[in-house]
């Protein structure tokens, strides 16, 4: 007998004491918990996102679509970044003011190549206010999972309020599980040494989140 059949057979055997015909999934679980916690206006939800991100030591900035390219350039030079990784589908007008060398992510780049980049800029799929989380789904403006992992500095652009939801249940509704997903809440951290929190063990030690109001520059003509 294959181990597959053996294990499945043991499972069935183990459950033999239970009555047949258990409730279908839809009725088996009472979902009386909340879809979101508390009532907030859209602006309050964005403010809560900013607050919770900062609480976990991400550095949060806000600007309008028009100011975005300038802000990104300023954040990079403030860190002295000479090279910046960019996903293939990052809108080119985000980078109009950037002077650092752009390194487009490519399937050919090795982990060592990525290790040499100073910073990386991406968009995101959705951001969760209650937990201070941004979620990447490998979309064109986010690129492969590894590019936001190896460099030490990650700038993530969140369009507000369009990409912001209140809660985890609302975020899951928006996401496609077929895509590789990375949920990020603050920079890499460990509490393994006497429960003292230290930022940055293996992932980026510096996470900056840029909340951009309204549309990106190209369409921000109002």
């Amino acid at each position, binding site marked *: 007998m294959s181990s597959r059949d053996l294990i499945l057979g043991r499972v069935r055997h183990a459950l033999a004491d239970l009555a047949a015909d258990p409730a279908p999934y839809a009725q*088996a679980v009472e979902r009386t918990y909340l879809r979101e916690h508390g009532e907030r206006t859209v602006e309050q939800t964005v403010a809560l996102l900013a607050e919770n991100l900062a609480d976990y030591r991400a550095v949060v900035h806000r600007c309008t679509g028009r100011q975005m390219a300038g802000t990104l350039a300023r954040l990079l030079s403030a860190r002295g970044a000479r090279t910046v990784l960019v996903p293939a589908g990052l809108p080119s007008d985000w980078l109009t003011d950037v002077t650092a060398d752009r390194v487009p992510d490519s399937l050919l780049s090795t982990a060592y190549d990525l290790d040499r980049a100073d910073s990386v800029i991406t968009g995101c799929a959705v951001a969760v206010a209650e937990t201070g989380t941004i979620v990447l789904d490998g979309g064109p403006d986010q690129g492969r999972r590894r590019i936001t992992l190896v460099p030490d500095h990650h700038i993530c652009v969140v369009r507000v309020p369009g990409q912001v939801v209140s809660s985890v249940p609302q975020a899951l509704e928006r996401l496609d599980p077929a895509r590789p997903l990375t949920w*990020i809440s603050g920079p890499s951290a*460990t*509490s393994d040494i006497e429960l003292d929190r230290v930022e940055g*063990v*293996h*992932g980026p030690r510096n996470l900056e989140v840029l909340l951009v109001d309204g549309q990106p520059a190209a369409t921000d003509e109002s």
Partner: protein
Amino acid sequence: MSGTFVGMPAFPKAAHDAVHNATLRANLRHATTTIRRKRADAVAELSDWAALREAGKQIKDHTLRNLDRYLEQLESAVTAAGGTVHWAADADEANRIVTGLVKATGEKEVVKVKSMATQEIGLNEALEAAGIRAYETDLAELIVQLGDDRPSHILVPAIHRNRGEIRDIFRSEMMRWGRPAPDGLTDTPAELAEAARLHLREKFLRAKVGVSGANFMVAETGTLVVVESEGNGRMCLTLPETLISVVGIEKTVPTWRDMEVFLQTLPRSSTAERMNPYTSMWTGTTDGDGPRAFHLVLLDNGRTDTLADAVGRQALRCIRCSACLNVCPVYERAGGHAYGSVYPGPIGAILSPQLRGTGSDIDASLPYASTLCGACYEVCPVAIDIPEVLVHLRERVAQGGPVTRAGTKVVLKPARGHAAERAAMRAARWALTHPGAVRAGQRLAARTRRFHPSRLPGPGKAWTATRELPTVPRESFGAWWKRTDGGTRDGKGGSR
């Protein structure tokens, strides 16, 4: 290396030794008190905590009740997404599968994400025997591995080590495993973390094979979920060409939507955070992003035997958050090593004797490693009634009865030579000579009186056959004294 738990003394002996280790106790007390307080705050933020807990319990119960169906669904979903599914009935088979898969890649080393399933089966030792070196990449696991030590906590496995000890381990051992510790390394956490970062980064960048566990597997979509903080998980899950995940069959949940419950309850229960820094979710393989080959090894290793026990099966709901460890007065004093298993604390006391059977002294004594104070049940995010299972297992050990081992029903004989009685009595003596543990227990005992049988089950049975076990008072004397200021204030009635 001494990384396994084989030949552990029974709990009372191990605990007895541990409570005399002052450093260990100080490290643990500091850690568990800190995390306990933070957890309570994080949970209090969610007004619907009770409903989330109940939903989590129901989702897991429903899954376990239909586990065959959900495992088949999971297998097809993972396969459809480009992964390969393997089934392992026990530790040996799982180790053989993983070793074979690594060998097929031609690689001699793997990077590992902290995973209790792989510790449970002794994968690192099996790989080493096959000439493959496994590098632990979680900071705490690195400390344990370099120190040739054993993990003592589910979440923070090196919780028993303080910063000075860690620095000494890094200084003396890092060079044997790769990049040595930087010169003049001090014991500040930031410097220690930096040393680990440098040491491990060279391993991540060249790694071709990653090995992980998973916190959840979604049957409907075939998605695996790993929750972590440091980013070492993301490194192992995305940089290598081949990814092998060894996961217990009980980690299955039916649908994508179910993650909305556990992603809220797990981080708050374990690290007391609103959300852990990183969560990775992947479904099979993705072209151009992450490993090109993905293998899922579904592990039984005693889980179906546990499932066969009508009372004990609830232990399989466990999402390994470790909240029960942090509130346990016995764990706080005895430390994780005393439990002789990768699953320490209250959950270990009910899980290990079910996964492994109660044949050894340590496993037979584990159900007694508790004051039955009920604190573990109160904090458990999937409402596992640990005291109920403990009492049930004590009865099993002492009186014998039908159990399932390796899929076959057998009748367990009562523990030989009153071994269990001795174990219980030694455990009781231990508790009595450590009044702090008992006091902490008593505060909650009043609320959990329904767990206290009027006759002792098992080993104490003969003793209570002619005596009534004193009932636990509604309030301990100490608490009454405090509440009423030594009886000078209204002392009528006990608090409920």
